[in-house]
C-alpha cells in the first residue's frame, strides 16, 4: 500500500490529471495482489457511480448552473449584497450562510461544495476574491452539510455503530451552527487581512424590502427545498432533482430569462463539470481498497488502545489520527473502516456514542478538503479552474476554525448532548 501512496504523489507532481493519478496508483495494489481478480479495477469505479446518494452531485451541479442562467443567482446575490454588503467579505459570508441553509437540504458536502462554487464562485471572483480564497470558502463551509441533519455520514455511522440516528441528527444542530459562526469569524478576520472591503454601508429597511421582493423566488428556494424534505415529498438525494425543476420553472415561468439556447449551454457546462468531478470520484474507488483488504483500521486502533485511557486525550489522539488518515482516504471509507473499531474503544472509557459521532464527523469532513486526496477540494478547484497550491494556502484558517469547534465539543460534550437529551430524554 505504501508504494501506492508514493506513486500517487509522484504522478500528482508530474502534473498527471488527478483522476488518472489516483486510478493508476490504485491499480498497482491489484498488480501486487494477483489473487484478486483484475476486473476489480473496472468494478470499483463503476460501483462509485451506482451509489444513489452520490447522484446528488450531478443533480445539484445542474441546479446551480440552471440558477445561474435563469436569473435566480443574480437576484440572490443582489439580495445578499444588500444584507451582507456592509460586512467584511460580504459574499464570502453569504457563502457560509448559504452552506448552513443547504446543510438542511443535502447530506453531501461534495454536492454542496460543487453547487456553491458554481453558484457564488463567478460573482466572488468578480468582486475581487482570489480563486484560492473562493475555492476554500466554498469547499470548507460545505463541510457544515454533513453535520446539520440530514446527513449521509451520520446515518452510516449510526447504522454501523447502532447509535440512534435521531439523537445523532439532533446532536448535530448546535455543532453545525457553531461551525457557521466560527467560519464567519474566520472570513471576517481573513478579509480584514486581505483587505476585502465592505461594499457599502448598512442597508436601510426599505432597501432590504425592495431586494427581498425582487428576489422572492430565489430567496424561497432553500426554504422550499427544506419544506419538501420535512413534508416527506422527497429524500435529501432527490432534493437535487427538485432544485433543478424549481430553477427551470422559476426561470421559464416567473423570470422568463430561460431560453432554449441558454438551456443547452447550461447542459454543456454541466456535463463537463460532472465528467471532471465524477471521474475523480469514480477512479478513487480503486485507491482505498487495499486499506480495507489489509485491515488497516484494526492495526491503527490497536495502536491507539495502547496509549491512553483518558477520554479527552483519547479523543484528541483520534482526531489527530483521523485528520491525517483523512488526507489520504475517502471519508466514507474512514467511517466504514474505523467506526466499528473506535466506537467500542471510546465507549469503554465512558464517552457517549452520540458525542463521539459528532467529534468524529467534524474531523472526517476535513478529509474532503485537505490534500493530497480531498474530493471537495478537487471539485471546487476544477470548477473554478484554481491551482491547488493557491487553494491550500487560503484554506488553512478555515480548517483551523473547524478544528477549534471540534476541540470545544471534545471538552464540552454538552454542546452536542444538550439537545438530544432534551428531545429524547437521557439515554
Amino acid at each position, binding site marked *: 500500500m505504501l508504494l501506492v501512496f508514493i506513486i500517487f504523489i509522484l504522478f500528482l507532481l*508530474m502534473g498527471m490529471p488527478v483522476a488518472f493519478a489516483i486510478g493508476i496508483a490504485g491499480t498497482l495494489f491489484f498488480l501486487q495482489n494477483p489473487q484478486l481478480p483484475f476486473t476489480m*479495477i*473496472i468494478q470499483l469505479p463503476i460501483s462509485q457511480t451506482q451509489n444513489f446518494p452520490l447522484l446528488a452531485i450531478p443533480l445539484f451541479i445542474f441546479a446551480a448552473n440552471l440558477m445561474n442562467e435563469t436569473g435566480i443567482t443574480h437576484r440572490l446575490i443582489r439580495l445578499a449584497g444588500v444584507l451582507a454588503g456592509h460586512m467584511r467579505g460580504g459574499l464570502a459570508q453569504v457563502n457560509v450562510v448559504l452552506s448552513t441553509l443547504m446543510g438542511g437540504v443535502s447530506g453531501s458536502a461534495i454536492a454542496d461544495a460543487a453547487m456553491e462554487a458554481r453558484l457564488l464562485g463567478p460573482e466572488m471572483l468578480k468582486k475581487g476574491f482570489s480563486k484560492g480564497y473562493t475555492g476554500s470558502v466554498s469547499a470548507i463551509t460545505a463541510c457544515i452539510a454533513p453535520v446539520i441533519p440530514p446527513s449521509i455520514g451520520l446515518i452510516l455511522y449510526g447504522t454501523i455503530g447502532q447509535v440512534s440516528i435521531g439523537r445523532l441528527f439532533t446532536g448535530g444542530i448546535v455543532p453545525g451552527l457553531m461551525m457557521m459562526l466560527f467560519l464567519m469569524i474566520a472570513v471576517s478576520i481573513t478579509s480584514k487581512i486581505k483587505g476585502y472591503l465592505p461594499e457599502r454601508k448598512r442597508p436601510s429597511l426599505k432597501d432590504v424590502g425592495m431586494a427581498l421582493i425582487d428576489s422572492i423566488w430565489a430567496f424561497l428556494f432553500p426554504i422550499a427545498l427544506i419544506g419538501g424534505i420535512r413534508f416527506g415529498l422527497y429524500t435529501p438525494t432527490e432534493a437535487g432533482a427538485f432544485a433543478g425543476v424549481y430553477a427551470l420553472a422559476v426561470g421559464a415561468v416567473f423570470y422568463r430569462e430561460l431560453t432554449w439556447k441558454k438551456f443547452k449551454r447550461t447542459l454543456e457546462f454541466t456535463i463537463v463539470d460532472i465528467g471532471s468531478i465524477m471521474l475523480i470520484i469514480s477512479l478513487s474507488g480503486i485507491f482505498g481498497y487495499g486499506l480495507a483488504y489489509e485491515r488497516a483500521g484494526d492495526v491503527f486502533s490497536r495502536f491507539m488502545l495502547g496509549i491512553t485511557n483518558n477520554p479527552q486525550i483519547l479523543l484528541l489522539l483520534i482526531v489527530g489520527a483521523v485528520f491525517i488518515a483523512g488526507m489520504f482516504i475517502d471519508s466514507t471509507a474512514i467511517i466504514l473502516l474505523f467506526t466499528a473499531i473506535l466506537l467500542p474503544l471510546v465507549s469503554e472509557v465512558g464517552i457517549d456514542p452520540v458525542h463521539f459521532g459528532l467529534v468524529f464527523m467534524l474531523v472526517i469532513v476535513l478529509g474532503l478538503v485537505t490534500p493530497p486526496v480531498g474530493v471537495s477540494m478537487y471539485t471546487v478547484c476544477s470548477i473554478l479552474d484554481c491551482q491547488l497550491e493557491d487553494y491550500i494556502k487560503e484554506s488553512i484558517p478555515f480548517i483551523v476554525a473547524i478544528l477549534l469547534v471540534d476541540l470545544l465539543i471534545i471538552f464540552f460534550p454538552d454542546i452536542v448532548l444538550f439537545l438530544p437529551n432534551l428531545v429524547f430524554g437521557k439515554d
Partner: protein
Amino acid sequence: MKKLYEYICKGETFLIKVFLVFIVGLVFVAAVTRYIGYPINWSVDMAVCLFAWCTFLGGDVAMRNNKLMNVEFLIKKLPEKYRNSIELINFFIILIFLLAFIGYGIKLSYTTRFRQFQGIPGFSYTWVTISVPIAGTLMVITTINKIRERLAKRGGECRLQ
C-alpha cells in the same frame, strides 16, 4: 476520418445531455409517484445506470476540453522542452491504463450478463459495465490526439465552442 470523429464527438455530448435530463426527470418522477402512493421503483435504478454513462463519457469530454484537474505548480517551473516530455510520459502511462480499462471492461461486461438490476427485472447490469469499454475507447482516441498534438505541436481535436 476527421469529419467522422467530429460527428462522434457531437453524438457523445448530445447523448450525455439527454441522459442528464433523463436522470433529473427519473429522480423527480420517482419522488412524486411515491408521494401520491404509486411508486415506480425502477426509475432510480435507471437513473444510476445513466449516471455511469454520464460519468465516463463526461470524463472523456472533460479530457478533450482540457478540463481535467491537475497539479501544475512543479511542472510549470520547468522549461517548455522538459514539460512537454513529462506530459508525453503521462499520456503514455494513461494510454496503457486505458487499454487495460477497455480490455478488462469488456471481460467484466461479459461476466455481468447474468447480473440483473435488482429493481429492473430482466435488465442486465451489462448495460452499465459496457459504458467503461465504450468510454474507454473514446478516451484512448482523445489521448492519442493529445500525444500527437504534443509530438507535432498541432491541433486536430474537436472542442466545445
